C-alpha cells in the first residue's frame, strides 16, 4: 500500500477542526459545513505547491471563512443540490437531522447573528485568533472587528466583563430542577 502523501496527511489532520469551525459558522447546518470544508480543502489542494506545510492550516481556515462569506458560492451551492421533482422535505442529508436537533441551542443563538458576526465569534473564540489576526483574516479594520464582536456578544448574551465567580454565584442562585 502506498505511503500516504503530504496532502492526504494534511486532510486527515485538519479536517476535523475545520469541520467544527464550519459547523459553527453555518449555525449548525452540518451539511453545508461539510460542503464548505470540502470546497476549502479543494482550494488548498490547487494551491498546494505554493503553500508551505506550516501555513496550510491557516490557508485552509481563511478559505473556509471567506467561502462562508462569499455569496456567489451560496448561489452555486444551492444550484448544485437541486432536483427536478422537489425533494422530500429536506434538501439536506437526512443522516444529519438528529444531530441538527440535538445541537439546536447554541446553534440557534448563532443563527441569530449575521454571517460576519458569526465569523468574528468563531475566529476569536473557537480558533483563538487575536483581534488583529481576525481583522487580517476577514480583510476588515480592527475597529470593525471590535464593534462587530461587541454586537455579537450582546446578541449571544455573553458579557465581556463578567468573570468566573460572578457567574458561579448567579448559577447557585438559580432554582434547582429548572
Amino acid at each position, binding site marked *: 500500500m502506498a505511503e500516504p502523501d503530504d496532502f492526504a496527511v494534511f486532510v486527515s489532520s485538519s479536517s*476535523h477542526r475545520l469541520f467544527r469551525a464550519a459547523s459553527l459558522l453555518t449555525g449548525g447546518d*452540518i451539511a453545508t459545513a461539510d460542503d464548505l470544508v470540502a470546497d476549502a480543502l479543494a482550494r488548498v489542494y490547487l494551491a498546494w505547491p505554493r503553500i508551505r506545510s506550516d501555513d496550510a492550516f491557516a490557508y485552509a481556515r481563511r478559505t473556509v471563512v471567506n467561502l462562508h462569506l462569499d455569496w456567489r458560492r451560496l448561489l452555486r451551492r444551492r444550484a448544485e443540490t*437541486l432536483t427536478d421533482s422537489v425533494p422530500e422535505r429536506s434538501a439536506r442529508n437526512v443522516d444529519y437531522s438528529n444531530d441538527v436537533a440535538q445541537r439546536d441551542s447554541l446553534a440557534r443563538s448563532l443563527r441569530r447573528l449575521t454571517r460576519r458576526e458569526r465569523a468574528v465569534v468563531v475566529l476569536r473564540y473557537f480558533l483563538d485568533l487575536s483581534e488583529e489576526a481576525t481583522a487580517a483574516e476577514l480583510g476588515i479594520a480592527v475597529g470593525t472587528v471590535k464593534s462587530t464582536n461587541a454586537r455579537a456578544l450582546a446578541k449571544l448574551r*455573553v458579557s465581556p466583563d463578567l468573570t468566573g465567580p460572578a*457567574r458561579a454565584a448567579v448559577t447557585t442562585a438559580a432554582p434547582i430542577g429548572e
Partner: protein
Amino acid sequence: MIMMTIEELRRALEDETMGLRLNMSAERVRRRARNIRRRRLMVAAATTLMVVAAAGFFTMSGTTPILPAQAGPTTIYYSDGTTVLSRLDSSSDNGLATPVGLVVNHVLDELSHADGSPLRGHSWESIANGGYAITTTIDQRAQQVLEQATDETVDNSTMYGQSRTMQAAGAVVEPATGRVLAYFGGHDGLGNDYAGFYVNEKGEATGVGRYPPGASFMVYTLAAALKAGYSLNSHWLWTPHDQPSRTGANQIRNASRCLSSPSGGTCSLLESIVSSLNVPLYDVTVSVGPGRVLDMARNAGIDTMWTDDRTRVDLRAVDANQVVPSRFDTILGIGQYPVTVLDQANAMATFAAGGLRAHAHFVRTVTAAGDVVYAETLPDPDQPRLLNAAQLADLSYALSQSAVGTGVALKTGTWEYKQDPNQNAHAWSIGYTSALATAIWVGNKLEEQPLLNRDGGTVWGSGLPTAILRRVVTDTQAQLGLQPTAFTAPAFVGELNPPGSYPN
C-alpha cells in the same frame, strides 16, 4: 437575564462541536479540486468570449445598448424602491442569510425566465454582477409583520417556543395585482424554501414548499360547485357511505360532524364547508366533475400540483382532462395533492379581487443605468372574472362563517400524519379580505411526525395556522393603512337539488 462569560462561550463552542466527526477523504477533495479547475477554465473562456462579443456589438449597433449595464453588484430593493433588501456583493451583510434571502431566488428566477424580461436566459451571476437596481413587490412593513408572526426565532412570534421540529411558512399577496407583499419560507435564506419553489438557471425546481392542502382545497371545490350552479343550501349525505372508487373499508371518513345533524344524515353545502366534511365534499367533486374542480383551482392561481409519486405537474401547461383521473383522482376535491403556500395565497387573491386573476410575482421594476428596462405585467382589468358577483358573494359568505366578526374569509385544512391518522402532519389556514390574501402552513422541518403545539395539543388548521393568519391580516392591514370593504351579503344562488345531492 443570565449572562455567559467569555470562558463559558469558549467552552460552549467546544462542547457544541465536540461530537462532530468528518470523514473527509483526500480523494473526494482531489475530485472537487478538478471540478473547480474545470469551472475556472470555463469562466475564463466565457469571459474572453463575452468581451469579444460585446466589442462586436458596440461597433455594429452604433447605439448605446441597454445591456450589458454598468458592471457592479446589483441591488435589490423593497417595494418603496429605496430600502435595500439585498445587495448582491460579497459582504456578510448582503441579506441572503435572512428570511428575505429566499425572495432573491424568486427574483432571479423571474428575471431569468419571465416573458418580456430583457435578462431572460442570462446567468444568475451575470444578473447579480450587472449593476441593476431591482425593485421588488415585497413591502417591508408587511414582510416584518409576517416574519414577526411566523419566524420561530423571533421572541414574540406565534411559533416561538413551539417544538423545534416544527416549521411555519406563509405568503401575502395583493389582490388584483399579484404582487407578493410578504414571503416567509424559513428563517435561513440559504436553507430550504418552505413556502414554495423557484426554478434555477438550469431549469431545476428548487424548494420544498408544497404540501397536501387537505380541506383548504375545498375552497376551489366550493367555487367550482357555485360556478356549476349548485346552491349553498343544497344538501348532501355526510354519513360515510360507498362512493366512487372509495368503498367498504376504504370509505372516505370525516374528521368532524355536521352540527345541525350530529348523529348523521344530510348536511347543507354551506355547513359541510364550515365543518370541513370530507364525505359530502367528495360527492360534490364527483357531481361537479374533478376536472372542473381542478380547472377552478388552476384558474384561481394554483399553477403547480404534485402527484402521489411526487411528480410536479405544471397545471398551466395541461388540460384538466389529460391529468384527471390518470394523475389526479377525485380525491383532489378534498385536498390530497400537494400545492405550494405561495400558490394558495395567489388563489385567495383572485377571490379577494372579485374573481380577477393576477400572476403572483416578486419584481416590480428593473433599472439599468437609470433607465427602466423591465416592468411587471399586471392583469387587464377587463379580463373575464372567474365567478360572477352573486357566486363570489356566496363563496365569501361561506368562508367567513369560520371567522365570524373578523371580516376575513378563510378556510382551514389539515392533513393527517402518515403513520397515525389520529395525528396531523400538515395544517393550513388560507384566507382573504378585499385588501389582502394570505396563506399560512405549519408542518415539519424534516421527517414527518405528529404536530403538537407547546401545550402538547394536536395542531389543526384552526390552531396555530389560523392564529398566525389572523395576526398577519390584522397587523398588515393596520401597518399599510388598508381598509377592506365588507363582503357583499350572500345571494344563495343556484340549484337546491343538483345531481348527487339529497332532495331538500
